[in-house]
């Protein structure tokens, strides 16, 4: 997949690849030329990425080569033991989790799996969890609480799956239950929005003490296409809706919804997944160290206050009472 605003970059990349195949003995200028192209590419990348629109960011967040949860697991964890099933109905393939070791931290790691090939995408339902996914996540979080393990949730989903069986098995209740239970968990919860934060489907594992977000991830109440279809009566006007909805990491930091932006390398995570994953690991480790120092009661009160503050409309008389 090529993003049209990156076409010029792709052309230079191609040219560099072509030149690199030539013999430098026959072409004395070659190294100089390649160097110049690299410099041009660097400044062009910076210029493009400094002027991204929110809609461009949506396209990057959905990019085919963007690191996915399984890449993060492989790159961040020295150990991962997947734990399956919700003990009620089944084992969701879009939302997985298990014991993981990140640096010296043993955690419960939970996240959405999108898949990269067509087969993988179908197998993982394009990263759209069913209720059993949210219920499995809750089971694992409760287990983490029992064992005193911090929880790390990595969010990358277009939405909770809007299917018939999903409704029959209580998609709404499954998400609502997680929101309610996560508010009270007595272990630290770190949330990282890595790609698409798709509405309630994302929030279902995104109630945390620290909400981190990759620079070119997005997080929204509704996909811009859906919003445009309703409020602009034209899905094609998604770029305008993306703008109005304020879904980029920068906007969300301003609005007090997220706590920290994890910078992506120049040209986005899809150009350099390794660096992106490494920076994510560092940010998660730092956050874990900070949160582990807080008492569980303090942690829970702060979490309550954090969400109570969001969208507050008037001065409140008393501080939270419990």
């Amino acid at each position: 997949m090529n993003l049209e605003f990156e076409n010029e970059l792709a052309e230079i990349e191609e040219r560099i690849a072509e030149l690199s195949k030539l013999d430098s003995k026959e072409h004395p200028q070659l190294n100089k030329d390649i160097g110049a192209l690299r410099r041009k590419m660097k400044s062009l990348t910076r210029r493009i990425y400094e002027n991204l629109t929110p809609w461009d960011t949506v396209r990057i967040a959905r990019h085919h080569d963007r690191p996915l949860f399984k890449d993060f697991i492989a790159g961040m964890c020295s150990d991962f033991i997947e734990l399956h099933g919700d003990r009620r109905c089944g084992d969701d393939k879009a939302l997985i989790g298990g014991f993981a070791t990140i640096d010296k931290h043993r955690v419960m790691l939970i996240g959405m799996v999108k898949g990269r090939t067509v087969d993988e995408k179908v197998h993982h339902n394009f990263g759209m969890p069913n209720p059993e996914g949210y219920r499995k996540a809750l089971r694992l979080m409760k287990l983490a609480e029992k064992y005193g393990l911090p929880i790390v949730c990595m969010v990358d989903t277009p939405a909770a799956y809007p299917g018939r069986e999903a409704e029959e098995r209580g998609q709404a209740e499954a998400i609502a239950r997680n929101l309610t239970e996560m508010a009270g968990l007595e272990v630290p919860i770190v949330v990282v929005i890595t790609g698409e934060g798709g509405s309630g489907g994302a929030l279902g594992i995104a109630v945390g003490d620290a909400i981190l977000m990759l620079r070119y991830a997005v997080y929204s109440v509704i996909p811009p296409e859906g919003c445009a279809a309703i409020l602009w009566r034209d899905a094609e006007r998604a770029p305008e809706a993306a703008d109005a909805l304020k879904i980029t990491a920068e906007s969300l930091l301003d609005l007090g919804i997220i706590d920290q932006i994890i910078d992506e390398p120049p040209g986005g995570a899809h150009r350099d997944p390794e660096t992106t994953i490494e920076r994510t690991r560092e940010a998660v480790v730092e956050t874990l160290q900070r949160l582990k120092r807080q008492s569980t009661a303090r942690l829970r009160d702060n979490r309550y206050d954090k969400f109570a503050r969001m969208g507050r409309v008037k001065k409140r008389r008393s501080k939270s009472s419990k």
Partner: protein
Amino acid sequence: MGWFKRSARKTPQNEIPEGLFAVCPRCKAHIYKDEYESAFKVCPKCNHHERLTAAERIELIVDKGTFREFNSEIKPNDPLDFKDAKGSYRQKAEDAIAKTGLNEAVVTGSGDINGTRAVIAVMDFRFLGGSLASATGEKILLASEHALRMKRALLIFSASGGARMHEGIVSLMQMAKTCAGIARLDRAGLPYISIMTDPTYGGVSASFATVGDLNIAEPGALIGFAGRRVIEQTIKEKLPDDFQTAEYLLEHGFLDSIVNRGEMKDYLHRVLQYSLGKKV
């Protein structure tokens, strides 16, 4: 999960003098208006429960003269400075205020139910489709905090198309915010009873509405996460007629009971008597 408006119901042509009769939107029966109003808009022929305003609901549930409203001055926020093709959200909210006489899509307060005092939140679908937004979420959280302080039960009557997309991510966060309030009641052993009325969808069904100690619904209420059309487009098949009705949810295990409007107050009073044991 944006809030939606159902297409306006067609009023059938009829020669019966205006003002005397109401027409049931489902079975089209003509009902004496007095009879219809005193039955709180329930059709005597087919038991269709028409949507109520918050004020009508409070009149139905709360003992006369005991309702004390909280935070009625709280109005919609515009955290995104949102504008769409049709204009600004600010204007839209002003229009909704003018149209409904309400400042937000939920009315909260305390009141007695057959003498048992409770904290009550009632959503009003007329106000921007009962959509959940920052001020809605704030009022519900403040109501839950009041219930916690006063050691009272919380009752929420939902009626909502979902999150209010004009407030973007801030409206999404109200799901987590309201649920955090419910979680505190839970830990304190205080009852929270959710009553879902037509319709309860999206950001409301996926937050406080479905995590009641008891989940109650009115007959025929439509309740779901995603809308029927979205699901049909996704799975490319037609859904059964009773899909997402209260009766369907009861069958699938997500409701404790479906309660007729005329029996709702007594029902709530009865269950409250079982639920306040930890209060003292």
